[in-house]
């Protein structure tokens, strides 16, 4: 006789059996895979959270995608990618703690930190513990000998700035230029190298000392005296994505009619919401960002990222690359998986197809001209112009 108790018992037994079969009977490829931990140390909270968050989410999206496809084959083994993250809150002391955590976990490849002082602070820890790290910070000392463990993850402003100014001078008739920067190490150093590049091109620098606190919410008082100088080009040196639309809007509302540019990556949605049509014509630097150059794989990456996190961040057009470089370099030399000296040797000759760009673009390490050694990812230098909610390619450059 079937009563309520026996029915329940049957159901429980059935469920347990199903789970047991699932656990034992489906020894998936993933379960057999080894684990490859890749670290991230950078800022994912506070005013600059957008910089690090786009890094982390790019890595997590790509890792989930690769794991879903069965993992990554490096040498004779197949690995699942595990992203280990640490929020340094843009504090160099915490960045050191984060890098020490990575060392304790036996991680040899770390993406970040996102800012100059954090990247400089972690250098001794990385070098002492055999860690190659990929900062988004521009001080040349990090990438020049005797330093050898840091690899610049993007185009530096002293590489993109001169190209942008030259283009605008030749194509838009720019003669006078003004700089404004946040009073922090990264933007100030970017401003200084920008001023140097502008002067080298023969541009008349009409303002170069104007700065603002990074937490400024209303930029009208900051920009009032600069707009009165009527420069042809206003450069927002090292501007954070949160501040760019506010600066653009304040300048335009004050009647500024010249061009506005920056050498940092920006987000089209943020510009659209914060500055609307005032942002039209704003020039910035991106990665595999525009439909003209993005491959189908890049488009799928954007779709997966959006599905995972609800909204895409255009900064990830550049941030997508670091993990790809790490994995492909390890594929090229499996001995590097636990030995960063092997990784360094491979960097000099490494070349692999670039999955994120149309055509036969390659991934390779560059930086010989700027740093005297190959310590930079060859990320495409795509100079964009914002127009009605999207970026359009102005021109594409490269770094050697």
């Amino acid at each position: 006789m079937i009563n309520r108790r026996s029915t329940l018992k049957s159901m429980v037994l059935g469920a347990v059996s199903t789970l047991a079969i699932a656990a034992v009977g489906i020894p998936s490829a993933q379960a057999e895979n080894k684990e490859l931990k890749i670290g991230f140390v950078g800022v994912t909270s506070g005013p600059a959270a957008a910089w690090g968050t786009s890094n982390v989410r790019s890595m997590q999206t790509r890792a989930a995608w690769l794991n879903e496809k069965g993992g990554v084959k490096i040498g004779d083994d197949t690995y699942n990618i595990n992203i280990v993250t640490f929020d340094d809150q843009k504090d160099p002391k915490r960045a050191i703690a984060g890098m020490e955590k990575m060392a304790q976990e036996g991680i040899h490849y770390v993406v970040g930190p996102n800012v100059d002082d954090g990247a400089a602070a972690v250098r001794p820890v990385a070098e002492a513990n055999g860690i190659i790290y990929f900062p988004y910070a521009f001080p040349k000392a990090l990438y020049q000998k005797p330093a050898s463990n840091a690899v610049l993850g993007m185009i530096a402003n002293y590489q993109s700035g001169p190209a942008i100014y030259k283009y605008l001078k030749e194509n838009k008739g720019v003669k006078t230029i003004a700089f404004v920067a946040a009073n922090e190490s990264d933007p100030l150093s970017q401003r200084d190298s920008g001023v140097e590049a502008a002067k080298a091109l023969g541009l008349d620098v009409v303002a170069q000392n104007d700065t603002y606190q990074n937490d400024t919410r209303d930029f009208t008082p900051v920009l009032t005296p600069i707009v009165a100088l009527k420069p042809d080009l206003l450069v927002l040196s090292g501007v954070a994505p949160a501040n760019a639309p506010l600066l653009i809007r304040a300048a335009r509302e004050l009647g500024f009619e010249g061009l506005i540019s920056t050498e940092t990556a920006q987000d089209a949605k943020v510009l659209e919401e914060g500055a609307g049509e005032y942002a039209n014509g704003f020039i910035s630097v991106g990665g595999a960002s525009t439909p003209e150059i993005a491959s189908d794989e890049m488009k799928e990456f954007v779709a997966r990222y959006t599905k995972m996190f609800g909204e895409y961040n255009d900064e990830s057009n550049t941030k997508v690359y670091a993990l790809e470089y790490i994995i492909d370099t390890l594929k090229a030399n499996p001995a590097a998986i636990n030995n960063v000296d092997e990784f360094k040797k491979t960097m000099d000759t490494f070349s692999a197809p670039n999955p994120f760009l149309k055509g036969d673009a390659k991934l390779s390490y560059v930086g010989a001209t700027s740093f005297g050694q190959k310590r930079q990812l060859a990320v495409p230098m795509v100079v964009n112009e914002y127009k009605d909610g999207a970026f359009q390619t102005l021109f594409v450059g490269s770094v050697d």
Partner: protein
Amino acid sequence: MEQVIANGLYLGAQYALIALGLTLIFALMNVLNFAHGQMYVLGGFITYTVYGQLGLPFVMALLASGITLAIIGALMEKFLFRTVIRRSLREESTMLLAAATAFFFDAVILLLFGEKQRGVPKIVKGVFNEGGIIMPYDRLVVGALALIFIAAFVLYMQYSRVGRAMRALAQDRVAAQLMGVKVDRYSMIGFAMGAMLAGIVGGLLVTITGVNSGIGGPISIKAFLMVMIGGAGVVGGAIAGGFILGMMESIGLTVLRQYGDVTYLAIFAALMVFLSIRPNGLMGKPWG
């Protein structure tokens, strides 16, 4: 120079409104609400969602921001601050609690609204450009609304029954209690009003400056600056502090621009000298 003064007045109006809620909570409960900036941010994000995302009228969004924050403030007072004040003899306990709530709000806001800067469509388009003064119309509207809110708040505190009870509490908590003022009730109303003001100003300013999850801390610091200048716990002091800071910022950024970012250096230096002469700020404590 006209433009510099106009910028200073506009900044002052918005700063004064930011500082009002903070000084109210301090006056009533002797609590330094470190989460004030986070409440401002939350108010901004609520307006962003209701007005910017759902497309509902701006007034409704502003109401939603104010009401939501008032409820949050009331709950915080009832379940957190009241308990801590009752159980702890040390004033630092409430400061630690306030700091903890600030970090908590930071994390929740980041989780709910993401890391990006957000903005909403302008509430009024166009720019006023006469007599050497350039001022977008939406700033004029927001500045006028800020002044209206400040005036309404002052009148409410001066003439309403609730306002008189809260002023009595601020002047002498024990005496007010002996006179029959329900301390718990008015403390909760005061905290809710302070939080509501933060929410409303966050909602107002999201139309001008947008909002992002990381600005709560800096907003709180600026609000503390204004309160220190004007005198902690004094409504008039917060208003004066806001206008003084706004004017100093506007003039400094114009006059000192050739020397780099020394405006806030000068402001902090002046504040140190000022506080060593008048440690209670311009108007001291308590109000009345």
